[in-house]
């Protein structure tokens, strides 16, 4: 409960106008700043996973939205290997409220309004964040959380991801 305002203030002023209670599930993902010769922003997928590790639903996928001379952005979605296998490949993209452009290093936030999670049964879940970077590596971070009551969770990656925080506001 206390974490949420902190997250929102850090996220940016655009979100600050919205009341805190509007966002029932917030995931903040730290994309590390890496000093490499050829840095490309990572592809990132964020999804809710059941305790048996099957995917409940995808909350966000950040990938190149355009076609360039190397190909279409969707050509590399498969590199988010875990997400791709557990549900990404069965999705039709772009998906409203899910697809987005790649994000810059720093703390990035996914806020899911309560209405979008209306069908989610109360219980124990994981938030899974997977990042895959061109000429870089791949990393998956799992953070357990409970749906149905206010709680928070945190985890951290070591290479392609930094801190991952999950907050359920009610």
């Amino acid at each position, binding site marked *: 409960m206390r974490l949420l305002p902190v997250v929102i203030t850090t996220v940016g002023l655009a979100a600050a106008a919205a009341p805190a209670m509007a966002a029932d599930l917030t995931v903040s993902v730290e994309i590390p700043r890496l000093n490499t010769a050829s840095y490309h922003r990572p592809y990132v997928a964020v999804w809710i996973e059941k305790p048996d590790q099957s995917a409940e639903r995808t909350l966000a996928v950040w990938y190149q939205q355009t076609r360039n001379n190397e*190909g*279409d952005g*969707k*050509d*590399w*979605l*498969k590199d988010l*290997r875990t997400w*791709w*296998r557990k549900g990404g*490949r*069965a999705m039709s993209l772009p998906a409203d409220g899910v697809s987005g452009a790649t994000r810059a290093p720093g703390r990035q936030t996914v806020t899911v309004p309560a209405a979008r999670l209306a069908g989610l049964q109360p219980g124990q879940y994981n938030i899974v964040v997977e990042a895959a970077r061109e000429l870089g590596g791949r990393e998956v971070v799992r953070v357990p959380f409970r749906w149905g009551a206010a709680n928070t969770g945190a985890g951290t990656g070591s290479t392609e991801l930094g801190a991952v925080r999950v907050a359920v506001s009610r």
Partner: protein
Amino acid sequence: MKKTIALLTLAAALAAPMAAQAHRAWLAPTATTLSGSDAWVGFDAGMSNQVFNPDHAAMRLTGLAITAPDGSAVQPEHAMQGQYRSTFDAHLTQNGTYKIANVMGGVMASYKLNGEQKRWRGAAAEYPAGLPEGATDVQATRTASRIETFVTLNNPTDTVFKTTGEGLELVPVTHPNDLVVGEPATFKLLNNGQPASGLEVTVARGAIRYRDNPEESTVTTGADGAFTVTWPEAGMYWLNASVRTEGHGETLGSNASYVAAMEVLP
């Protein structure tokens, strides 16, 4: 020093006939899991001691067929035969799973003509009419070889898994483009459409050049022809089984073999 050379010569002499038998046929894709509106996949096909390591002979692709998810045939493109491998590309334009198979079969026969030992090879339909007049002591074997692999654009499908009832064939229980380290995968082998029980399946991982241990294993099919592999590491795997029965007089022997290349992701 002399002793070493003598030993090496002996080793080489022993290895030669073994090697001829041990050459493994493989048809390996450059990628198996793809995304986007369309994709290109390249394939290498050859025969070698170490799987997927082209160092012996290129494969003849006379029986090559690429089957799209809707059942239509896809033309291989940019085909080239090198010294040690044949290569071609496939352009994937449909969502789903494609089967790429080099299937060859026929009859091989040995016979005597005027006291001289001879060999004959041809299509099953040409036998025995293709044998010369006056051939005696005919011993014939029906051969069926299937060398295949699978690739998937976006979501996997199972339309290309239909079997023909000829030779050794694989029926996936676990989708061959859905394999990850540590998870068991099950497949069934059929011989002429019937469960191939008690068959030994060899499972070998590629990239042997970069490690010391070949890490090869075998697994035996059960009564229903099924076998299960739990992948110890990510990589391209070679699966192989064969069945041989001796012919007696008029009855043809048979020699059926099956090879698949399957990619296991971390």
